């Protein structure tokens, strides 16, 4: 790609990325160039230097500047329609709370429905449960097939769900439409679906476009939804975290409120969102700086989008060719991400397998890529059950994808299957207890025995065949047996076991 930034400049802008990692997961947490980070740090320092002055004299105008930049970016008709929030998760909480009150105030009836994709983001499903279902509403899921071959499959599935939502005299109060689904990742024909919702009299149309800005074209007026939210720290080079909530008809929703209530309550959602108590707002102030960065590239944001899409589809095609698998969607339904089928012999049989495989790729191959498990339909022969969601952003190189290619090939050729995970005792990574022990190889299974149960902290390093060094350490309690694995069949280094006392 031609950009005015030399490859060296580009490298320095992302030199804080761990250079040993093939980082092909921009979709999850995004990325931020050094020049934007520095701009953010300057704002942070200004606040720390004289917070009162910053609060009274600089914060509001700076937020307004960011809002104006966003308005132009997404072709909103007025800056009043733009509120800046932490992330899409916050945006949906705002809208769902508003709908919750309509149940409380008897404007909605118990049993009224909401329609959302089966593949909607986990947090969104929980949010709908927490506010809409709890207040008396009922959720209809759009059952979308995957893999997909065309938009028609999506449109057809959505139509079915809307009809179901309206059956038995119910009203569809809410439609949550992804612009780009998260897992599996697919570009959804939002414009068509929004029109369908309007025709069917849906009260409130909310587009979850967390991934959209910076990876596909966004024109909120053309899309025509009531609410549209996108993160700017995923694909638009802003630091964590910042998103916007666009409200099409701001005068018609005076009762839209941020759940965190400050003295700005009642001054409109944009004002309320701009002050929710003392915190670091610096990520919200660097949108102009991010746009400046983007304009150093030939073609600006458009050029970057096209480049990312072109590269990710090239890489996706390369991978399916080498692995003998298939893509999850046609190329024109991919954004800057693509779903690439994984070899069936890897034996991914569950969401848990998918997560563990992802961990394995991170720990043993230093490849960062999320894995999706898809349940096969009845009658499928040798189905592809696992897909890697590869991302491409301007810092990626072909090597990143060759490393993924080789890692998977390595696993396949060494006969690895996810079945090995079920031989592991459940290791729960989310607790703080690390356990270390002295171990011995017992024919593929490795047990660590902590020899001194009276000391609070017990240490030792275990060595196993195949160059695997497994460490476990006990804190706050004795551990009698920690069973960990040696990983049969392939090289792995420095795997840390983290878990509960067993």
């Amino acid at each position, binding site marked *: 790609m031609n950009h005015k930034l030399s490859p060296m400049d580009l490298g320095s802008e992302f030199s804080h990325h761990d250079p040993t990692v093939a980082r092909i997961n921009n979709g999850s947490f995004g990325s931020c160039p050094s020049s934007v980070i520095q701009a953010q740090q300057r704002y942070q320092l200004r606040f720390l230097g004289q*917070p009162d*002055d910053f609060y009274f004299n600089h914060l509001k105008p700076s937020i307004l500047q960011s809002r104006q930049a966003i308005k132009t970016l997404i072709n909103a008709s007025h800056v009043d329609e733009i509120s800046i929030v*932490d992330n899409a998760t916050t945006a949906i909480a705002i809208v769902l709370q508003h709908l919750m009150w309509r149940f409380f105030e008897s404007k909605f009836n118990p049993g009224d429905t909401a329609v959302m994709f089966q593949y909607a983001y986990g947090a969104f499903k929980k949010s709908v449960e927490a506010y809409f279902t709890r207040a008396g509403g009922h959720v209809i899921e759009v059952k979308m097939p995957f893999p997909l071959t065309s938009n028609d499959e999506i449109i057809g599935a959505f139509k079915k769900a809307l009809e179901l939502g309206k059956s038995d005299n119910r009203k569809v109060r809410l439609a949550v439409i992804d612009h780009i689904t998260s897992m599996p990742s697919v570009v959804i024909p939002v414009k068509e679906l929004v029109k369908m919702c309007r025709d069917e009299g849906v009260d409130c149309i909310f587009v979850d476009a967390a991934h959209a800005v910076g990876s596909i074209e966004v024109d909120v007026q053309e899309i025509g939804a009531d609410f549209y939210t996108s993160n700017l720290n995923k694909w638009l080079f802003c630091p964590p975290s910042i998103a916007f909530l666009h409200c099409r008809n701001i005068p018609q929703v005076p009762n839209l409120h941020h759940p965190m*209530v*400050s003295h700005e309550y009642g001054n409109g959602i944009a004002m309320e969102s701009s002050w929710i108590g*003392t915190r670091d707002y610096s990520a919200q102030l660097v949108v102009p700086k991010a746009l400046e960065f983007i304009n150093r590239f030939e073609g600006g944001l458009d050029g970057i989008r096209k480049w990312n899409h072109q590269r990710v589809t090239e890489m996706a095609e390369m991978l399916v060719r080498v692995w003998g698998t298939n893509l999850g969607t046609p190329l024109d339904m991919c954004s800057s991400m693509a779903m690439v089928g994984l070899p069936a012999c890897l034996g991914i049989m569950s969401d848990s397998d998918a997560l563990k495989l992802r961990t394995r790729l991170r720990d043993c191959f230093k490849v960062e890529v999320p894995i999706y498990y898809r349940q096969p339909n009845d009658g499928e022969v040798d189905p592809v059950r696992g897909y890697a969601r590869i991302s491409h952003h301007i810092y990626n190189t072909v090597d990143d994808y060759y490393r993924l290619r080789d890692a998977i090939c390595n696993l396949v050729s060494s006969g690895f299957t996810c079945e090995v995970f079920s031989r592991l005792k459940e290791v729960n990574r989310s607790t703080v207890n690390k356990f270390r022990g002295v171990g011995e190889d017992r024919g593929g299974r490795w047990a660590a025995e902590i020899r001194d149960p009276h000391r609070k902290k017990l240490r030792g390093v275990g060595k196993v065949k195949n160059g695997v060094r497994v460490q476990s350490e006990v804190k706050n309690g004795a551990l009698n047996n920690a069973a960990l694995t040696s990983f049969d069949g392939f090289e792995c280094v420095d795997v840390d076991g983290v878990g509960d006392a067993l």
Partner: protein
Amino acid sequence: MGEIRNHGDHPEEEEDDHHINLPKKPKLSSFLTQSQIHHEFAHHQLGVARINNGSFGSCPASIIAAQKRWQLKFLQQPDDFFFNQLPAQILRSRTLIKDLINADDVSEVSIVDNATTAAAIVLQHVGWAFAEGRFNKGDAVVMLHCAFQAVKKSIEAYVTRAGGSVIVVHLPFPVNSNEEIISEFKLGLAKGKLNGRKVRLAIIDHITSMPSVIIPVRELVQICREEGVNQVFVDAAHSVGSIPVDVKNIGADFYVSNLHKWFFCPPSVALLYCRKSSLSSDLHHPVVSHEYGNGLAIESAWIGTRDYSSQLLVPEVIDFVNRFEGGIHGIMSKNHEAVIEMAKMLAKSWGTNLGSPPEMCPSMAMVGLPSSLGVLSDNDALNLRNHLREKFSVEVPIHYQPLKDAEVGPRDERCGFITGYARISHQVYNTIDDYLKFRDAVSKLLQDGFSCRMLASREQ
């Protein structure tokens, strides 16, 4: 509460353990010198008499540096940070906080952004209770007249809107003793219950914001229990790092304190303590993630992608405060002594008063302003504050205290009524010059015959 120990601080752990990262412990065995303290706060704007630590807090350079290290870890490899480091580090912070406030169990401690968020959590819970019929329309929530504006608005947003009623209790100011507060609260609460309303929740400040006074919360919580109030929420935004906190002793159901005000954390981080009881399991963070239903502490630990670094610094802050003689207790005593000394100096110079006796002041004090300055409205107070910032580089919030009675009230040495108070703060970076600068600014204003009326007319 003795000296705070850092759990898990064993140097030998640091070898190849890249999942728990403790910064190297300082090798210094002596305490921080004045010069070192000055360096720690060298990023504070030069030339400003910064006597308002109470509003936005402050953060030393070594903590900022530690924060940057965490931020970098996320930027380097965010997935690894999210899966392998973040939950453990948040749990570490929560565990240290539990000891700090003498809670029974770490499950009672959640970390949130600030007291404003905590209010939303507790009040949303009340809102649901009204909506789901557990509370009846008209059931009441009690608040203090001087409650923080965000709390008042939260009550409007979640309680009033859901059909609840509000009992407002006025506390006296200026105030002379705890007894005055206790008896006013008793009266106010009883009056509010007169028509037989059930009181579901009382929200009580531990240290009021404006005007700032330490409230005898333990006694007020007891009164609430005696009067049949279901639950008590203590808004202690200012307390951690300025007064000792023992949540078991205080006995409230919910207790929130910011850690970026007086506990040297960067903006922003607060603790929300929820006493273990069947009711507290129904609390939810308003921003719902996949952790919904796993308990408030776990919900609060992940509310979508954002920068959680300010929540991970409690261990480093504990190291920092232990570089002061007496640790956090030493800091609290020194701040308190210094702010009282400065308050008395100012009051003497201006011929005014303190708004409360020293024992009711934390690291802040309310100092009466000369009556001729003419602070006669909230607008006057804000205008005067801006004027002091712009013309004198003095940062101090001003409070307007209307007279209870037209002919009764504190008077200054010229016999005018005192209606304006400055809330001066003292934190480790302050020096006497800051307060002398303020003293001289006011003297100049008096010399020039200044009155807030002049600022108001300028606005028009």
